[in-house]
C-alpha cells in the first residue's frame, strides 16, 4: 500500500515539476505564435508606390499552379487610366484557397513580383465560396490583429 502512495507521489512530483516548465501550447486567439517571415499563407497582390498594380495578368502563376487554384483574365487598360504599371492588367484574379496547397510556385513564377504569399494563415470561413479570394480581396492584404 505504501508502494502505491509512493508511486502516486512520484507521479505527482513529475506533474508538479512540469508546472514549472515553459508551456508548449499557447492561448489562441488571445496569444498568437510568431511565424518565420518566409511562412506561406494567404496570397496578396502587390501595388507600387503610385498605387498601380504590379500584376500584368500574364498568367504564369495560373500555368505553374499544380493545384489549378488560380484563374487570371487579362485585358488592356481601360481608356487612359492605367490600372497596372503597363497597358496590360488582370481584370479577374482568383485564388481558390481550398484548392491551394501553399507551395509558393506562383510567387516564384511571377515575373513582376506581384503575387506574394503573406504569413496570414487564418483562413476559416463559413462557406466554400468565401474561400475563393477575388482580386479585390487580394489587393487588400490581410493583417493579423
Amino acid at each position, binding site marked *: 500500500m505504501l508502494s502505491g502512495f509512493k508511486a502516486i507521489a512520484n507521479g505527482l512530483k513529475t506533474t508538479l515539476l512540469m508546472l514549472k516548465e515553459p508551456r508548449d501550447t499557447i492561448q489562441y486567439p488571445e496569444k498568437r505564435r510568431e511565424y518565420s517571415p518566409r511562412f506561406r499563407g494567404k496570397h496578396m497582390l502587390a501595388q507600387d508606390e503610385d498605387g498601380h498594380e504590379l500584376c*500584368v*495578368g*500574364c*498568367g*504564369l502563376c*495560373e*500555368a505553374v499552379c499544380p493545384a489549378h487554384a488560380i484563374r*487570371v483574365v*487579362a*485585358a*488592356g487598360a481601360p481608356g487612359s487610366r492605367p490600372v497596372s504599371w*503597363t*497597358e*496590360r492588367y488582370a481584370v479577374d484574379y482568383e485564388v481558390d484557397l481550398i484548392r491551394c496547397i501553399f507551395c509558393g510556385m506562383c510567387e516564384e513564377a511571377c*515575373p*513582376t513580383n506581384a503575387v506574394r504569399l503573406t504569413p496570414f494563415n487564418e483562413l476559416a470561413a463559413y462557406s466554400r465560396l468565401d474561400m475563393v479570394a477575388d482580386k479585390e480581396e487580394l489587393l487588400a492584404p490581410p493583417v493579423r490583429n
Partner: protein
Amino acid sequence: MIQLSIDGREISVPEGTMVVDAAAKLGIEIPVYCYHQALGPLGACRICLVEIEKMPKLQTACTTAVREGMVVHTGGPAVEKGRQGILEFLLINHPLDCPVCDKGGECFLQDYSFWYGSGKNRFEESKIQRQKDYPVSDYILLDQERCVLCQRCIRFLGEYVGEEQLMLEGRGVHTVVSTVEGQPAHSPYAGNVIDLCPVGALLSEPYHFKARPWNIEREETVCSVCPVGCASLVTGRDGHPVRLEGRPQPDLDDYGFLCDHGRFTYDFVNHPARLEQAFLDGKPASASAAVAAVGERLARVVEKSGGGAVAVLTGAVHTVEEEWALAQFARESIGTSRLAVLKPVAGDLPLPLLGTYADLAAATGVLLLGADPYEAVPVMHLKLRAARRAHPVAVWGLGDRVLTRSTLPGEDFVAEPGQVAARLGVVLGGEALDGRWAELRRGLLETERLVVLWDGADPAAAALLAALAGQRGERPTAVLPTHGPRNWLGAVRAGISAEHAAAARILEDAAEGRLEALILLAADPLRDFPDGDLAARALERVPAVYFAGWFAPEPRHALSAMLPTAAWAEVTGTYANMEGRLQVAHGAAAAPGQARPVRSLVTALARAMGHPLRLPDFDPFQDQDGDRIARPAKQPAESAGAPARPALPPGEWRVLTGDMVAVSHPPSEIAERTREPLPLRLHPHDADELGLGAPGGLIEVAQGERRFVAGARRDARIPAGRVFIPRGLADVPANRLDHGAGVKIALADPVREEVAAP
C-alpha cells in the same frame, strides 16, 4: 538530285534546295526568322548560321543552296557561339516584356533564346524606345520595339500578295516596319502577317490580351466562311472561340494563309443574332417543349398526308455527319424524298470535272468563268498568284464584268449581262470569231492543263464546261466551283441532292400548296435561292416552316419553330471544301444556350414523332477515294453549242451579281469594322453622270414597284451601264430582281444619304 551530308546524315535533294529545307527533311531544325518557304531566301536575321566544311566562316542556311558533297554541321561550338551572338544582338533593343506580350509562350524569340541563347546580355545601355501597339490595320497592332526586322510581313504583302502596304523605314537601329505614307494596310490578306511574325511585333487586335497558350484550347479546324475551307487552328478560351490562325499543311503544299474575312469572323458563334433559344410559334420555349411540339406536329402531318407532304432544305453549313443525320431523319423518320441543298446559284457542276488545288497549282491556263476569286473566295486568288510565281500561267476572265486585276493580270473578255455561258458557247463553237475571241478559243483548247474557276451562276455553262473538257481531249480540264454554301459538297457526300432543280422543285411544290411542312436546316431561301420570288411565294403558302440552325432567317414570324443548333467550332466533324476534300474540324468551344448538335436534335425529333431513329455508324471517308468525296467517272461529253438567249430591252441598267465574301460572311462583331458600306458597284462614268460622290454614296435601285437603297462604290471593273449587286445582300436582294428586265437607278434621297453615309 544533289547528295550532301548534314550532321553526319546523308540526304539527296533537288538542285536549288536551301540547306535549311534539306535539314528539315532530315528532321533537323535550324532556327529561322526571316526565311519562309513561301517567300524564299532573304538572309536578314542571321539566326540560321551553320558550319559548312571548307567554308571559312559560318553560313546562313536559308540562303545557301545545297552543293554536291557539301558537309554541313548544324551544331558544335562555332555554330552555338554564332547563334548566341546573333540572339544577343537581336535582344539589344528588345523590350523583354514577355509577360505583357500576347506572343509570350508561343514566340520564336523566346524559344530560340531559351534553346540557343546564352542567357546573358552584355548590353547594359538603355534600349531604344519606339512605338507600341500602333494599329497598322483595323485588325493588326504593331509593336516596333519587339520587331526583329525579319521582313516577312513586308515581303508577304509586297511579293506574295502584291499589295505593298508595309515597308521598312529608316536605317540601322532606327529601322522600323511602318505603313506606306501612314495609310493603314487594307489588304484582305493582311491578317496573315500576324501568323508570319516570328516574334510579338504584329499582333491581332481582337485577340489582344485575351489569352495565353496554356489556358486555351487550340484545335485543328477548317475555316467555315467560304468553300475554300482553309486549314486553320481555332483557339477557344472559356468556351468561346477567341482566335483563328492559319494551319500549314505541308503534305498539300499549303502554307496556311487565310483571308481576313475568314480569320476575323470566328466570333459569329457568339454574335447577338445567334439563335441560342428555341422558339415555338414566335414565343421562347424550352428546348424539350419545342422539340416535342415540332415532333408531334410532324408526326400528325405524316400520318394525315404521308411523308411526301414534308420537305427538307439544308443550307449545307453543318458537318457532313450532321447533314447525313438530317438525311437519315428525312428518309427514315419522315419518309420523304423531298430533300435538297439550297444553293445561291442555279448552275450544277458536273462532278466528274471537279478539280483540286493541286490541279490549280500545276495549271498552265486558268479561266475565271464569272468568278472573281479575290472577292468571292480570296484565298483562291492567293493560290493563283502562288502558281504564277512558280511557272507561267495564262489567266482569262470571262464574265459580265472585269475579273482579272492588277495583282492577277490576264486577258479579260467581257460578255453582255447574262450572256456569259452564251459567249463561252460561241467560243467553243468556233465559228466566226474575231481576233481576241479566237485567241481565247485557242488558249482554252491548247493550254496544257486548264483549270476553270466557275461561279455557278449560269446553268447553261455546266454543259459547256463538259463540252470544253471533251474538246480538250486528253489534256486535263478541272473545274473548281467558287459558289457556296460552305459544305455543299459535304451534303452531296451525305447523300443530299445539290442540284438546283431539286431545291426548285421543293419550293415550287410549296408555292403550289403541295407541302404541309417545310424543314429548313440553316437554310434561308428568301435570301439565298436564286429565284427570290418563288422562295417568297413558297414560304407564304406552306402552312408550317420549321427552322433549325444558327441564324434564323427573316421574317421570323413566318417560322413556326426555331431550334438552335451547335455551330462550327462547337462540334467535331467533317467538312468538304470546293475540291471535294473532306476535312476534319475539331471543336474548341461550347455551344451556347440550348444549341445542340444536329445529330442529337434529329434523334430527339424522331423520338418525339414516335419513331426512334437509330443512326448507324457513318464515316464520310471512303476507302477508294481517300480524303476526297467520290466522283462519278468522266463521261465523254458532246460538243455543246451556244445556248439561245433573249435579247435584252435597251435603255435600262443591267444587274450583275456575284459572290462577295465581305458581304456573305456570317454576322461578326469583329468584322463589323471592315464591313463594306458601299457594296454595290458602278462604272465611274456612270457614277459621274448620276452625280455620285467619291468613293461612292447611296443609290436607289428600282424595278417596277420595288425600290431598294444601298451604298454604291465606283469601280472601273464594272462595264458602263451595269450595276453590280453582291449576292445575299440584305439591303438589295439581287435574287428579287428580274435580271432580264433591267433596273432604274437614281441617287437616293439626300436626307437618308446623310444619315446612312459612311
